[in-house]
């Protein structure tokens, strides 16, 4: 997995490529902990696989962002990854956008 942390239009954007699983999710958490923006977008367009550890990591990132009065959106996930959010009802918890561009205007 690769995580690119970017600043875009006042947002902290995390562009994730590859798999978010029990081995790689600590790396995403570490990248997230370095930022302090109140507006966060996690771009999941290039994520090919996510497990329950990955879902839990995104939940943790959402909780921390909200605790600081901020907002976090998820963008661009594939149908399969999105289906896991729907099955676990996490789609009710997160703001999910079809693309990063859409997230950057609506989060």
């Amino acid at each position: 997995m690769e995580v690119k942390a970017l600043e875009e239009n006042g947002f902290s954007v995390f562009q994730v490529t590859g798999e978010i699983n029990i081995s790689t999710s600590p790396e995403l958490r570490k990248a997230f902990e370095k930022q302090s923006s109140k507006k966060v977008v996690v771009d999941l367009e290039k994520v090919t696989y996510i497990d329950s550890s990955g879902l839990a990591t995104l939940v943790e990132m959402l909780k921390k962002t909200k605790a600081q009065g901020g907002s976090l959106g998820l963008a661009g996930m594939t149908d399969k990854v999105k289906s896991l959010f729907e099955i676990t009802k996490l789609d009710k918890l997160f703001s999910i956008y079809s693309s990063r561009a859409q997230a950057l205007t609506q989060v």
Partner: protein
Amino acid sequence: MKKEFQIPSSLSEVPKTSAQVLDFLKPLKLTEGEIFDVRLCLEESLINSMKYGNALKPEIPVRLILEYTDTELKMTVEDHGEGFDTRKIADCTKEENLLKQSGRGIYLIRQLMDKISYNAKGNCLSMVKYLGKQAKA
């Protein structure tokens, strides 16, 4: 076809094992969706067995048995732990549990597999996936 694995209880073994399993299942020509589901359920069950059953002690193996026909895949994952009652796991989809960190692995297995069962002790999980239900990619 049937194959048995004895896997050391180390998380680094999980991706190696799922790669071996998917290689073994190649003759089934699974769809991308089926591969994703099988891999996820296998890895979630192996991780649970290694962590909670075998306390991540590499010298204590997890036993995995794969059996398949053209229409059905069965994966059995057994650890050496005391077992647990899955009915005690909180429903991760309830609003009050959505922010919790755990409980999603077994829930995903229940949803993505067609049939699952535990032995009486609770340390052996059998998962069945009926094949050919998803359109070929």
